[in-house]
């Protein structure tokens, strides 16, 4: 039996894709994702998502960097290896600022990049959507909307009918395994596949 990841609709431009995402959301679909060759701001909102954790995580990274930088200098210069030069105070904090600043930036930048990669679940060499026909153009000039099979409202016939109303260039199945080519005919048996084990 064919395992279906979802249905994919292909568009030529961002505008119809955003419109499609909006209408899919209004139709009650939640488990869906858009794939585009460049970032499109309105898509996030059209898909009904909000992600705001990253800036806070980066802020924490920066704070960690500042504490590390300042603490390292303060402890080493006052306790571990005090230099007594010309009676100057051991805890000469203004001199610690440049390194504190550099480490704040360094930690925050690494947190931003590692955080983004981790939250995105990357590196992920394999993903079912790569099985979709013509998906290599998602990094070139095509715009895709995928409605996943695990969406409670997903139905092979109904969802396909719904996607057709959005006037996409093409609609096809996204198979779960790379060797089973997703042809237009096998959706009838795929309808029996529930959300099952792919639910996270």
């Amino acid at each position: 039996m064919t395992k279906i990841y979802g249905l994919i609709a292909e568009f030529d431009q961002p505008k119809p894709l955003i419109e499609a995402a909006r209408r899919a959301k209004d139709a009650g679909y939640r488990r869906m994702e858009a794939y585009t060759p460049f970032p499109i701001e309105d898509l996030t909102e059209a898909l009904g998502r909000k992600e705001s954790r990253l800036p806070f995580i980066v802020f924490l990274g920066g704070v960690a960097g500042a504490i590390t930088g300042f603490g390292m200098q303060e402890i080493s210069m006052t306790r571990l290896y005090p230099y007594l030069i010309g009676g100057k105070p051991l805890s000469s904090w203004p001199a610690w600022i440049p390194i504190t600043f550099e480490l704040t930036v360094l930690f925050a930048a690494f947190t931003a990049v590692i955080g983004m990669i981790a939250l995105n679940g990357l590196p992920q060499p394999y993903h079912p959507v790569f099985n979709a026909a013509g998906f290599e153009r998602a990094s070139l000039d095509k715009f895709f909307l995928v409605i996943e099979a695990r969406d409670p409202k997903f139905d092979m016939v109904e969802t396909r009918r719904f996607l057709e109303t959005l006037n996409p260039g093409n609609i096809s199945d996204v198979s779960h395994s790379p060797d089973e080519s997703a042809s237009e005919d096998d959706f009838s048996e795929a309808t029996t596949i529930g959300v099952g084990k792919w639910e996270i």
Partner: protein
Amino acid sequence: MQRTEPLNTPIEAQLAEPVIAPGQDYRSVTQKISEIVLMKNTPRGWIVGFGIAFALMNVLLVSIGYLFVEGVGIWGLNNPVGWGFAIVNFVWWIGIGHAGTLISAILLLFRQEWRTSINRFAEAMTLFAVASAGMFPLLHMGRPWFFFWLMPLPNTMGLWPQFRSPLVWDVFAITTYGLVSLLFWYVGLVPDLATMRDKASNLVVKRVYGMLALGWRGAAKHWHRYQKTYLLLAALSTPLVISVHTIVSLDFTAGIIPGWHSTMFPPYFVDGAIYSGFAMVLTLMIPLRRFYGLTNVITRRHLNNMAKIMLVTGSIVFYSYLMEMFFAWYSGNEFESFMISNRFGGPYAPFYWALLFCNAVVPQALWSSKIRANELLLWIIAIIVNVGMWLERFIIVVTSLSRDFLPSSWDLYIPTGWDYATYIGTIGLFLTLIFLFIRVLPAISMFEVRELVAEKEGHLPHQH
């Protein structure tokens, strides 16, 4: 944004060329940029250029090899002039790097869309310039194999670096700058690496790009976080780049040598860095866009804007020179005023006059839009500015050190062949890396150019 006011002359019309030529689509721009990398036959011009650069890089390897055997005595350093070429080149290279960060971070925050087709290349330039720069302080240490002593690492002697010293700040600044620039560059590359993966026909090439692309698939939620990260990195890099050259300038100002001990140095150095960096971007970009036929994506508008930034920063540099002279007179300090008269009439006077000519006089030509529209002249001016900025660092480092307070301890610094060989060698290293970069990675950000096409052709619902 398109200009709306009428254009008076054909020159102005040329310079106001849109940042991307009309009539392009996603596929055509991607094709144009990616084929430079994916073409089967390496162009002959590339092979010749790379060959020359690689030969020069070998000069560097020989120079470093001999340096490790003999020590810094092979350079022209002596007792008053302990810094010499190593620090001159270090500051020069770091300064060149700054334009890359300025283009990719600061212009992004200011939403300057013309940065899009030049940022990738400028960031790569930053990385390679930092690599060339970072080498010099290490080579300059008498015992470069102990370079890790610069870092606060646990050691059996229980020693710590002196954190009150700008030289130690410099270690942190340059390391942070190098690493953050690398992150910025790589993050910018990820979606383009995915495009390369999808376009490559050779399986091995496909796999390599695929691995580097981390499985990027362009999902909307990924893009959303991606853009946030990119903005955050830009916001972090902006103060970082200013701090880096500020700290480099503090290496000088913390010393009491006349010509160094000045509160003007941080802004003067940061500005000079941007000036030399833009000169280097132009030096590399003008031949590149011609050779690979990229005139549709790197238009005259880009060259014009960069020339204008050079004019502005060059004028600030000129102002700084005038202020140095003014302070020398106004302070009433005889060592300061001697420093200026020594620059004008001392043993290194020809260098100082050449510096004023290259950095202050020649760039004034950029006021003319005719000259800004002339690629060849612009390219020559950019090279002259590169030379001038190198001379500036030479003047700052060498004239001040060679004649400070006590005439009995004066001495001249005469660079040896090894000084020149090491310097030319780093130019070889830099160019070698640039040539390799152009051949194996997309030199222009493809996804950002696609975004620009969508914006220009009205494919996005609304524009900000």
